[in-house]
Every structure is written in structure tokens, then in C-alpha cells.
């Protein structure tokens, strides 16, 4: 779409804009296997041009949901719409959707060109057009020099590119990716993540990716849905989900978190005063809804938001506690500290190793003070 076509109003992300129709609509979809609910009444709206991730651990139902979009599984209940068309019950070979498989599923008896041309041949396109589009697709994934190779003569990364080209050459309205980087080693994976995003932005095709790797989901997606036991727990941009986890599950699954439990003492403007027994301390956490005094509550504090000083002259007080260093995990760029507080509860804090010194921060058994800003904690729903 050319820039001039864009409306003059300030640019909203599609999911914030009430005037934009969702491109993929999943309506109350359930899939059961016997008594097991693999996908349990899931509703989801995905917009044109999005790079959407389904994130969850193994067995959470994300792959089943993806396979229902592809047409390999039928929903037990509910409906699926792609570009306004009800595709529930449409066989996979008639859907405007293509999939990149976790195992790549390259045809071992065909060379790279024939693999990529396979989908176009099914459409009975003219030979010249097939040749041109295959060449363009291989060019896009930088595999144009390998057209005559058989899949078994390619490395894992090259196979991955061919699988991508084979799915993209059909110009699908929607591309589904099942753990597309799962079989690559770490370095190649990080490199490919950015390439995949570049290709997606260049072509403007909507991508839906299944992954169990939260870093991958956060790096690549415009939005993501976190799934657990067949249910969608939270949908949002990676930053929103990280900073405002809705539940304890999200707080602990996406990134690391100190989840502290306590009771509400009272509400002060947009702040919640909480007594936390584990820390034997009072917490002041930002929260925009008042809560009944005495109600049980859980608070998530990300380790990087817990500040740590070697000073011990500060009196303990609200959002400030004393402790001693129990464990240090040195990761190079950062160090993770496990601090034992007076009540015995461990709290994680993070320190950036900004200066190159041998002992960058506090050492084992050293007394430290931890403190944090009310705005940096999150009150969890459940």
C-alpha cells in the first residue's frame, strides 16, 4: 500500500482501531480428544499484516489451534474466519493459507526448485510464471544458488529457507509457522529471527507463529497470545504482556518475576498499600482500581526493577528491605542476585555489569538494601 493511500488521521495500531475489520477471526473454537480439551473455547482476532505469536509450553494447545487454521484438524465446536470467509470445514487444499512445518516436511525426492514449484503446479499456472515465481521466491530467501540440490544435501538453516520459500511462493493470505526456528542452533536462530521479520514486513503477509520460546515470540511479534492448558491467558503486545502480566502464570512464564503475596491494607489515590508477611514489610504498588482492605493479593516484581545498593544505613521501610546475598549468577552482561531477606524469603534482583571490573557488585553474604518504585510492581489478578 502506498503511503498516499493512508488516511490522514493519526496512525493507530489495527487492534486499537475500531474501524479495522479483523483479518482472522477465531470464534469460540474448541477441540477435544476424548475427554481432553486441547483447545478450550478460544476466541481471537488477528489483523492484516500482523506477526502474531501463539506462545505456550508443550501441550498447551497452540499447535492444535494452528493446525485448525491450516485445516488439518477440525474444531469440535466454534468457527474460523479468514478474510471474512468462514473456512470451518474447508479442506486444507482449498484454503488461502500456507504452513511452514516444524520438520520442514521438504519432499526428499524432489530438488529445491521442484519443492518450491509444487504448490504452483497444483494451481496449474503457466510454466513460465511458475519458473519466474520460483526464482523470485528462492531469491527472497537467498537460496537461488541451490535450486538443483536435493533436501538432504542442505544444512538445517538452508532447509528452513526452502520451506519458507515453498510456503511463500503461493502468495498466501496467511502464513502459519509451526516452531519455524525450533531445529536451528542458537546463533542461527537469532539471525533468522530478524530475517523472517524483514521478509514479513516486505511482503505484508499476515504471519501466525507457534513457539514455546518466549524470547523468540517477543523479538518477532507485533502481538502475542499466551496459552495454557487449552486456554488463552493473555493477548497483547510483547511489551504490554511483559510489563503488565495479567496473572501469576504469565508473570512467571514470560520472563522472571518475584511474586509476593500479601493483604491489602488500604488504597491511597492510585496506590495500593499491602502488607507482605513473607518479607515482613509494607509495599506500596501502583494500581488503578481500589481494593477492599484485608483482601489477599499477589504482586509481581521483575528482578531488573528491584534496585540493590551496598548501603546498609537506610532504615527498612515501605518498598525497602534489608537482606544478604545468597547466590550470584554471573551472565556476562548482567548478574542475577538471590537475596535472602529477614523473613527467609528469597528475592531476585538484577545488576547490569556496566564497568569491567573483576567484582562488579556486592559479594556473597554481603548485607544489601533492596528497594523499588511503586510504579514498577504489578498487582496480579489471580
Amino acid at each position, binding site marked *: 500500500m502506498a503511503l498516499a493511500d493512508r488516511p490522514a488521521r493519526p496512525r493507530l495500531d489495527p487492534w486499537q482501531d475500531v474501524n479495522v475489520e479483523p483479518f482472522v477471526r477465531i470464534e469460540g473454537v474448541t477441540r477435544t*480428544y476424548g475427554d*481432553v480439551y*486441547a483447545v478450550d473455547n478460544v476466541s481471537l482476532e488477528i489483523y492484516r499484516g500482523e506477526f502474531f505469536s501463539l506462545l505456550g509450553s*508443550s*501441550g*498447551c*494447545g497452540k*499447535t*492444535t489451534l494452528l*493446525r485448525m487454521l*491450516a*485445516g*488439518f484438524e477440525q474444531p469440535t465446536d466454534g468457527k474460523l474466519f479468514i478474510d471474512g470467509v468462514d473456512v470451518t470445514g474447508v*479442506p*486444507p*487444499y*482449498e484454503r488461502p*493459507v*500456507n*504452513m511452514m*512445518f*516444524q*520438520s*520442514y*516436511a*521438504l*519432499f*526428499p*525426492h524432489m530438488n529445491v526448485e521442484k519443492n518450491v514449484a*509444487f*504448490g504452483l503446479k*497444483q*494451481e496449474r499456472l503457466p510454466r513460465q510464471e511458475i519458473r519466474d515465481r520460483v526464482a523470485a521466491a528462492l531469491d527472497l530467501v537467498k537460496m537461488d544458488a541451490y535450486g538443483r540440490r*536435493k*533436501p*538432504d*544435501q542442505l544444512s*538445517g538453516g538452508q*532447509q528452513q529457507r526452502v520451506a519458507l520459500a*515453498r*510456503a511463500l511462493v*503461493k502468495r498466501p493470505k496467511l502464513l502459519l509457522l509451526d*516452531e519455524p526456528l*525450533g*531445529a*536451528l542452533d542458537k546463533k542461527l536462530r537469532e539471525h533468522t529471527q530478524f530475517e523472517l521479520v524483514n521478509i514479513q514486513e516486505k511482503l505484508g503477509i499476515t504471519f501466525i507463529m507457534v513457539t*514455546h520460546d518466549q524470547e523468540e515470540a517477543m523479538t518477532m511479534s507485533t502481538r502475542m497470545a499466551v496459552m495454557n492448558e487449552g486456554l488463552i491467558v493473555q493477548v497483547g503486545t510483547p511489551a504490554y504482556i511483559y510489563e503488565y502480566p495479567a496473572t501469576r502464570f504469565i508473570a512467571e512464564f514470560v520472563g522472571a518475576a518475584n511474586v509476593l503475596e500479601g493483604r491489602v491494607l488500604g488504597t491511597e489515590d492510585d496506590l495500593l498499600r499491602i502488607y507482605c508477611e513473607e518479607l515482613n514489610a509494607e509495599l506500596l504498588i501502583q494500581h488503578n482500581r481500589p481494593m477492599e482492605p484485608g483482601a489477599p493479593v499477589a504482586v509481581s516484581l521483575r528482578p531488573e526493577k528491584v534496585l540493590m545498593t551496598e548501603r546498609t544505613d537506610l532504615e527498612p521501610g515501605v518498598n525497602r528491605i534489608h537482606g544478604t546475598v545468597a547466590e550470584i549468577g554471573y551472565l556476562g552482561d548482567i548478574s542475577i542476585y538471590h537475596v535472602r531477606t529477614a523473613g527467609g524469603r528469597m528475592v531476585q534482583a538484577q545488576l547490569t555489569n556496566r564497568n569491567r571490573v573483576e567484582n562488579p557488585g556486592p559479594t556473597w553474604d554481603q548485607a544489601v538494601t533492596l528497594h523499588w518504585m511503586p510504579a514498577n510492581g504489578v498487582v496480579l489478578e489471580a
Partner: protein
Amino acid sequence: MRLKRRSWLSLGLMGLGYAFLYGPIASLVVFSFNKSRLVTVWGGFSTQWYGELFRNRQILAAAWLSLKIAALNASFAVALGLFAGLALARFGRFRGRSLLAGMISAPLVMPDVIIGLSILLLFVVMQQLTGWPETRGMTTILIAHVTFSAAYVTVIVQSRLVDMDIAMEEAAMDLGARPWKVFMLITLPVISPALLAGWLLAFTLSLDDLVIASFVSGPGATTLPMVVYSSVRLGVSPVINALATLILLVVTGGIVVAGVVMHRREGNARRKITPVGAGRRAVEDRV
């Protein structure tokens, strides 16, 4: 599984095993070139028994019949075994599946005398009821052979299908191929080495069978094993050694060619694809 330390004991045992397998075969070949009629005493080099073999009309006719039956049997058995293998490996739990599975695994171990007797009785009863088969011979032998060798083909096809990444078929469907095209363009080519192996196996099973053929054969239909058997009962003969050597030569040649073809087509493939395969299984199992 591989052990770092190879004990001499296990190597020696393995060597003895192979010697046991090949010693008798070697003795057959060596004495086929023996000048003396005695199969066990060396009397100098000669190829006279091969000449005698090729002048033996009875053996040649029987060999021709056996080869015809074997080739037809192999082709029918592959078709039947492909169907049964597909049903068992791809159709999930359908009604009658355990019946089919049972009827596939039983012929693998069933003693030949029982198979031969039972299918002969079927032919006799069918003839009484319908008039067919009028006489027993090539057709009845063929039917009996297809029945038991299809079971072997099924096992080969089924295990190849189970081994095959099902995502390959899904990918083809995802790219717009209808089920029938998926089968013709993807499944069939991918399992073709198994079909070739099945064909060869069915061929040799048929060429080798004495007992079942003896039951269901009729006048005028004498297969090679039947000729060999009646000759062997009368005592050892260097002509049989010569025949054995030729069979060995043909079979070994066939196997080596087929092995090389298959090795080229999938041997390399399997080895190189392993890292992907390992990753695939490790990452996630679907609900």
C-alpha cells in the same frame, strides 16, 4: 548403540556366526566346479555340470514356470501389500483393523504345511461348488503365493509408512494437492524403496517355496523347488550345485543392484536429515 571397547570375544563370536552362514554356501559353489561326480571330494576344475544343467529340459521348464509365477506373484503381492499397509498405517482405528492385522501377521509364522493344506482344501471345495478352478496348476500356486507373500510386503510397507514424516503429506495438501495427488506425488515416491524391497522379497519367497506349491500344484505344473527336491531326495548331485551357484549369482546381483539404488536414494538422505529429525522430535509433541 555403539560400544567403545570392542571385545575380541564378541568379534570372534560374530565372525563364527558369519562363517556358519557362508561356509555351506561356499562349499556348494566350490563343488559345482568339481570334475568328480562326488560332491565332497575334489577331482579337479570343470564346468561340465553347468553344461549338463542347461541340457536338462525338465529343470529349465520348471525354472521358467517358477520365474513366471514369482514375477506375477511379486507384482500382485506388492499391490495387495500396499493396500493393506496403507490401511494399517494410515486409516487409524477402523472396524476390522485387528482382523486385518491378525491375518497379516499370522502367515509370517504359520507353518507351510498348514497354509498349503488349508488353501488346497479351499480350492477343492470351490471346485465342487463353482467348478473353478478346473485344474490346479500355475493359477492356484500363484493365488497361494500371493496370499502369504502379501503379508511380508505389508509389513515392509507399513513400517516405511509409519516411519515417514506425516507432515510431508500435510505439506502437500497445504500446498493445494488433493488427497489422491498427495498419494501419487508424495507418498508413493517416498515409499518406493519399500515397494521395491517388497517386490524382491515376494519374488524370492515364491521362487523358494516347495511345500505350499506341492500342495496346490496339479499335473503338469512342476516348479523348480519341486524338481530340486525330488532330485535331492535321490542323493546329492553336482548339477544341483551348479543350479545353486547360478541362483546365488542372480540373487546376489539383484540384491546388490537394488541395495545400491536404495542406498543412493535414501541411505544418504536419512543420515544427513538426522539433525532435523532429532530436533523435530525433541521440541514439541502435539496434543
